[in-house]
């Protein structure tokens, strides 16, 4: 068995800054854009990049995620050999260890990767919204004869202090790393997407695992070590939509970007589709009084009310005399007759009573969330 590139998708994060959205659910499995889950984006990217072996590293509350990924067939990742593999922490003869860092998670699955005998390993994380053809990055990596390629994008100079910043020479070789620098020397930010030559990575992981000082993190430990060892590290320039959705506000904003026709992130573009694991649901039913503008609505919804600039997930029931504006409503929520909601996120299976009047001011940066159960 030989596969050119194996993707390893870090999906173990709790995402505690997403509050109750991740109370019962891992961050990569949080709903996005109505019908999607965050992990759909990297998985669909893999599919669109012809990568057909993906290891998904899970740890925090993985039930929904495991169930959602299933056999990977939703992303055509169900080949006889290859496909999507869920990799939870496990016990060996000497007992079990949780994944203690991004690099440790890969270290503990060296055996898995070796089964496919790859040239390259692509490291992805499950909390970014973007479309990217990884095969171009792999081609870049090969052309540069790199040991490691890091996808980077230009950010606003005033935001650069919030990112891992890289400085490069004229040939895109990285000369310096600055982690959340006070005085950034460039505005090229790492997107947390890495292509490693597997031979180099494996050696580095073994070395890092033996280092008691290390936190076993790619950004903090492994990459600086490779840089010190003069490995060939290149920056792969990316331009296009990319969002980290690690906070409630960034999650809300990225959702609302989907309703902005001037935004360059387009879910409706059929040449680079985002796939998801769909359940069979009835089509949306719009009652005689329904009024919907500038909104995304999913299958299985029953709508009798008024909706403006909102994103409504599957199986939501919105009764008469309701008004929703700038709202995100997750699956199975019921909005009772008469409720008025603005600028908020309604959690899965929430039941909003008819006398609810929730109107957050526009400057209220933290929308309220009602979560009953996810």
């Amino acid at each position: 068995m030989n596969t050119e590139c194996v993707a390893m998708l870090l999906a173990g994060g709790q995402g505690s800054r997403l509050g109750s959205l991740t109370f019962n659910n891992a961050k990569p499995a949080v709903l996005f854009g109505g019908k999607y889950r965050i992990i759909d984006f990297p998985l669909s990217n893999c599919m669109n990049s012809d990568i057909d072996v993906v290891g998904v590293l899970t740890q925090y509350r993985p039930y929904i995620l495991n169930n959602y990924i299933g056999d990977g067939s939703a992303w055509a990742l169900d080949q006889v050999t290859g496909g999507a593999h869920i990799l939870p922490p496990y016990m060996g003869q000497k007992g079990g260890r949780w994944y203690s860092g991004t690099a440790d998670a890969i270290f503990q699955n060296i055996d898995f990767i070796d089964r496919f005998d790859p040239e390259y390993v692509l490291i992805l994380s499950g909390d970014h919204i973007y479309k990217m053809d990884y095969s171009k990055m792999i081609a870049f990596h090969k052309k540069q004869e790199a040991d490691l390629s890091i996808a980077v994008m230009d950010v606003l100079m005033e935001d650069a202090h919030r990112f891992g910043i890289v400085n490069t020479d004229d040939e895109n070789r990285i000369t310096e790393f600055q982690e959340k620098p006070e005085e950034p020397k460039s505005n090229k930010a790492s997107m947390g997407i890495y292509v490693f030559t597997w031979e180099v990575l494996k050696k580095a992981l073994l070395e890092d695992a033996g280092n008691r000082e290390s936190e076993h993190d790619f950004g903090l430990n492994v990459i600086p070590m490779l840089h010190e060892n003069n490995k060939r590290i290149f920056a792969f320039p990316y331009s296009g939509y990319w969002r980290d959705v690690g906070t409630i506000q960034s999650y809300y904003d990225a959702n609302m970007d989907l309703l902005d026709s001037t935004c360059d992130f387009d879910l409706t573009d059929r040449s680079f589709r985002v796939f998801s694991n769909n359940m069979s649901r009835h089509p949306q039913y719009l009652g005689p009084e329904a009024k919907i503008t500038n909104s995304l609505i999913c299958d299985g919804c029953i709508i009798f009310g008024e909706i403006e600039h909102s994103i409504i997930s599957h199986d939501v029931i919105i009764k008469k005399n309701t008004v929703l504006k700038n709202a995100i409503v997750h699956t199975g929520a019921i909005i009772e007759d008469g409720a008025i909601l603005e600028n908020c996120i309604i959690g899965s299976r929430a039941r909003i009573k008819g006398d609810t009047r929730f109107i957050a001011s526009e400057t209220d940066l933290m929308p309220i969330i009602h979560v009953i159960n996810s």
Partner: protein
Amino acid sequence: MKNIIGIILNVDGEDTSLRDFLEHRSLSTLPFGGRYRLIDFTLSNMVNSGISSIGVIGSHKYSSLVDHLGTGKEWSLSRKTQDLSILSGTSNNRIGGLIKINLRNLQDNRAYLEHNSGEHVIISTPNLVTSFDFKNAYDIHLNNNSDITMIFKKDDPRYNLLDDDIYLDFNKNRVSGIHYKKSRVTNHFFAEMFIIKKSVLLRLLDLSKITGDWDLMEMIQANVDELRIYGAQHRGYIQRVNSLESYMTSSMDLLEFEIMQELFLGKKTIHTKIKDNHPSLYCDSAHVYNSIVGSGCIIHGTVSHSILFRDTIMHEGSHIQNSIIMQKCEIGKNVSLNYVVMDKDTIIRDNTTLMGRPHSPIVFKKGSVI
């Protein structure tokens, strides 16, 4: 329900009003209700009743059926246990005028029936729009040691009855007479689903082979005293699609919320092939009400009392009412449609106005460009 084989017949035929939609597909795969195919109702009803061994008889236009059903995974039918079989059939059952239930197709698949361990067979046509649980009918069938149990309904003005439709007489609960519509004495009509003992079915097939008569209803009629035939009543919504008019009315029935609820919102849902689409996008200028909309649509205009299938794109200034737009159609700017039914991939250019009439909507074939 392990002891039951489900058979879904093939009813392609000659009804000219649906001809434009049946050039490349059989009636069983006619798109319906925004995302379904007609056969989804019967197939889901069987699965939801616990039947896990189902044979679907295809026509010579099998490609769309095969593509739609796959191995039956979306209906929870397993390839491992060969739950779903797509069978070849040589003859058609009727739409209007032809043999109502043609046993020739069952004879062609006799080996399938014989190899299966089930002792009873539930047979249904594929063009019924209904949510029906066969369990109660099966209980009646077993309790009466019935040879045949016919599903019937009391007169229903929605149901588009034809002259060769069948009415049942009862003596207590047992069927004592079978009449065609014109000579009917009761108001219980046969709803084109029945349960039959496999042994009885095989005997009838033997008989047909000798007599050359393959019309099951005629055979039942001739043997109504010898056979133990009982009835099981259907009390819910049911429509049969066998003409453009019945297609139109049963589609528009879905816009009545009570019917929508009965068909789709109960515990048992109608399953269908899953397609990947983005959520439907309602733009600033959209106004959509009293309608059913599939996923993947992008809507700029006004839609009322209509059904839009998946992936419809509708541009600014357009109005759609009382119409059915199948998947992947594109409606240009300032278009006005009333009583129009268009098959997949149809394109309506800007500034077009098309006005059909309630009983004779304007119809467009797949891939038309207007």
